[in-house]
């Protein structure tokens, strides 16, 4: 991936207008650990990609806006929630700005000695991103544009958090 302008930011949490790079997230969850020579056992990833259709509309592009400092704090919070429940190292990168159909908007990686933990953590993290991270999609479709509004963001809402745990499949 070094032949394009994709980010090589190997921080666990990142918000960028550059194209995302899964290699950077894999590096983030595997490098520098005391058991690096042994390896984590398994790494799962999730890549969210801009779709060409939404609610019957033909989507042309998305423009993502975020409140960066609060979004990064929300990432850290999600990371702490995840580490409390599963034996994983995680990375979470989100892209902002104008994205074309097929481009990646979000990438998640989870490394664990146990594949069940890695899969569950990945699923939990994307659910929590959609619940509490202050990022918004401005959808441009054939015939107009609309701000997409999903969940009222409330990190203390335990019902939402329990929903995410349930979806992650362990309860």
């Amino acid at each position, binding site marked *: 991936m070094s032949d394009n302008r994709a980010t090589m930011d190997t921080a666990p949490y990142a918000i960028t207008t550059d194209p995302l790079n899964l290699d950077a997230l894999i590096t983030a969850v595997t490098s520098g650990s005391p058991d690096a020579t042994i390896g984590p056992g398994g790494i799962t990833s999730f890549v*969210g990609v801009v779709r060409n259709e939404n609610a019957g509309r033909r989507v042309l592009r998305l423009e*993502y*806006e*975020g*409140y960066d*400092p*609060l*979004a990064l*704090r929300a990432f850290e919070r999600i990371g702490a929630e995840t580490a409390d429940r599963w034996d994983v190292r995680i990375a979470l990168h*989100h892209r902002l700005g104008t994205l074309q159909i097929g481009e990646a*908007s*979000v990438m998640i990686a989870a490394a664990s000695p146990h594949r069940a933990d890695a899969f569950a953590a990945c699923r939990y993290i*994307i659910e929590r*991103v*959609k*619940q*509490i*991270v*202050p*990022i*918004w*999609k*401005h959808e441009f479709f054939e015939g107009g544009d609309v*701000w*997409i*509004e*999903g*969940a*009222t*963001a*409330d*990190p*203390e809402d335990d019902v939402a958090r329990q929903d995410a745990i349930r979806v992650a499949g362990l309860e």
Partner: protein
Amino acid sequence: MNGNRVTIRLFARLKDIVGTGELSREASSDATAGTVWRTLMNEFAELRDYETSISVAVNEEYARMDAPVADGDEVAFLPPVSGG
């Protein structure tokens, strides 16, 4: 006039309604995030659509509408989020 001012940050459709993502307003010494929001709603009636769905952050931390705000604070109002 007591000279207390807060910076208000707005995002997504709220920014479109108000016409800017950042503005400054006076706040009384006993102001809360909620009083700042109500001041803004009085100015921009379309914001009333968000009365029950808004989230608020004070100085880049999620907060409640009853959180006090002081001179120089940044108060951000967040419509329902749609990342991912």
